[in-house]
């Protein structure tokens, strides 16, 4: 099979022809044929809408009166700068991210270490059960935790009260709502746990053995070997989590019925976007909010990728 191909490509380069060989044409034809569903979908549901969102961001489009739309220049963007809700929603989003990301990572690392421990009996059972809450539909999870955090009959406060600790009104406090959201988020640690665990299992055992000979204790091995070796997994999950904070919507909506309360404490950026676009029908303004969201996510991703060279370790040969 290989010989005629070789001959053909030699011929093509020999004649310096720009024309594709019949094999290349065949590859192109079939390749494009197979990826065509995505190409079409990308155009119709991604590329054109992203551009259209940008165009709409310069208009006062309102779906109730779509025919009297007009261009208003940068007005939506200047409104954003003075819109207290926008700043509040950015504050909420950042506050949540700063609290949730380290705690979730800590918890995920702990779970991964635990289920990966050679001292754990029936580790597969533990793995499945620690993963399981991630399978619970998010609305159901929100509803369950709203009950657990209930001031009268919820188990959190019954437990705290039993040992004499203060019993906050989790759902109606502008302070305590964040720890509650983080707690609920821990139910979704399953993916992080599994990927970190798989990363840990991929670390060659010789490295640990060498470290033991050098006298490194368990904690030193974890910090100096495990963490650097799984840094690509950490990087991937960190990126998704930071972006996730800016898309955070479902739980905020379920716990407070989309009000954004108490006092805008759950008015996440994505919720504010939703309310403007679909409750107040300000779709022009919503488009501006969406584009700014897009730019924020792009910038954060760019920063993460730019700094990743300094702390993400890719083993040789793992260039994919």
């Amino acid at each position, binding site marked *: 099979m290989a010989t005629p191909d070789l001959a053909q490509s030699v011929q093509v380069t020999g004649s310096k022809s720009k024309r594709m060989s019949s094999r290349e044409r065949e590859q192109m034809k079939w390749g494009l044929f197979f990826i065509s569903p995505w190409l079409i979908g990308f155009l119709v549901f991604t590329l054109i809408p992203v551009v259209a969102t940008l165009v709409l961001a310069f208009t006062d489009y309102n779906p109730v009166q779509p025919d009297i739309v007009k261009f208003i220049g940068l007005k939506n963007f200047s409104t954003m700068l003075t819109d207290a809700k926008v700043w509040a929603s950015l504050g909420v989003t950042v506050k949540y991210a700063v609290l949730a990301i380290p705690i979730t990572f800590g918890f995920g690392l702990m779970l991964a270490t635990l289920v990966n421990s050679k001292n754990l009996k029936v580790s597969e059972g533990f793995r499945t059960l620690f993963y399981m809450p991630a399978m619970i539909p998010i*609305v159901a999870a929100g*509803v369950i935790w709203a*009950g657990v955090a209930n001031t009268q009959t919820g188990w959190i406060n019954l437990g705290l009260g039993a040992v004499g600790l203060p019993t906050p009104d989790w759902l109606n406090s502008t302070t305590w709502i964040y720890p509650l959201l983080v707690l609920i988020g821990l139910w979704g640690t399953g993916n992080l746990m599994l990927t970190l665990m798989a990363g840990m299992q991929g670390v060659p055992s010789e490295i640990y053995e060498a470290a033991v000979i050098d006298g490194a204790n368990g904690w030193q091995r974890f910090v100096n070997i495990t963490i650097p070796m799984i840094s690509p997994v950490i990087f991937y999950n960190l990126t*998704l989590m930071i972006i996730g904070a800016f898309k955070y919507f479902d739980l905020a909506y379920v716990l407070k019925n989309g009000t954004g309360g108490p006092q805008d404490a759950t008015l996440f950026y994505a919720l504010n976007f939703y309310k403007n676009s679909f409750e107040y029908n300000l779709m022009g303004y919503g488009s501006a909010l969406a584009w700014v969201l897009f730019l924020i996510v792009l910038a954060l991703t760019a920063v993460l990728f730019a700094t990743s060279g300094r702390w993400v370790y890719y083993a040789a040969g793992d260039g994919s």
Partner: protein
Amino acid sequence: MANLALPKRSYQQRDLLNKVLVTGIALFLLIIFLAPLGYMFTTAIKSDSQMSDPQAPVIWPHSKATFEFNGESLELFNVPINGEMQELAMVKKTRTSSEFLDPNNPDAGTIMWEGNWRTLDPVYVRDPQWQNFKKAWDDLNFPRLFLNTLVIAGFGTLGAVGSSVFVAYGFARFNFKGKNILFMILIATIILPVQATLIPTFIFFSRIGWTNTLLPLIVPHYFANAYNVFLMRQYFMQIPRAMDEAAMIDGAGRLRTFWSVILPQSIPALTAVSLFHFFFAWNDFFSPLVYLASKPELWPLSVGLQRFNALYGRQPNLIQAGALITLVLPVIIFFFAQRIFMQGIVFTGVDK
């Protein structure tokens, strides 16, 4: 000799101790981690009065025990008689003394007890309210929500899997100009927030009359997505090319090779992708909220449960029963398919 044997035994002991310790910590953590499910279940089977009774045991639903006598229902109390606690049925109560019957021997006549009856503890018996599930089922209109969810998840899964294997095969097996750039664009769409495309898409769907139908929740999934394509492509690349070539030498065309050589070998990956989409669709709250807000008869479980929660705020028992019946199916499917599912997670999450 004894000296030599000792270190070995103590090593084994230490090993056992470590195992007990680590497993114990894990078990403790797991119980706390899953405790909210216990709250959900025990709350779901309580009545309104059981929940608001401050004296009742906290976890399992209990009711005050009663004793039927001469057509009357008498409450049972723990009464100290001659220094001994007895469960007696109250016949008559006053603040200074009360009359009781012994339920084991009611014909013996009443027993007088001096003291305020309010200081006595009522007798509780286990009394789970299983009918709450029936009530939540009806009030939620569960069969309708379930059917809608099944239609969205089922047809969506069909499209997501069908399109993704197709696209993944294209990326895995053919070499053409721009392929790598296209693949990078595909992967980059992972970070694209749905909000950045939502408004024009919504306007488009509403212009063609698709809002307030299930179509916007199904049709876009027929055009492949990054996660699924990535997983399938990785899988295809592990299948030796010689298999394709052998089939083609035998005269099979590209489509036939794909259909009868590649797909049959990709069942685990196909299963994983199907599960991903099925769970995604079952879970999805945002899209149905946007597209079906004013069409309750088409709501899936996610939106239905959220609205139920908003309306029945004063009846946590029914809300928890509703939550339980919405999570049962995905959790059961997960337990049956957990190995394939979790392998798929690792596959997409580690290789990037």
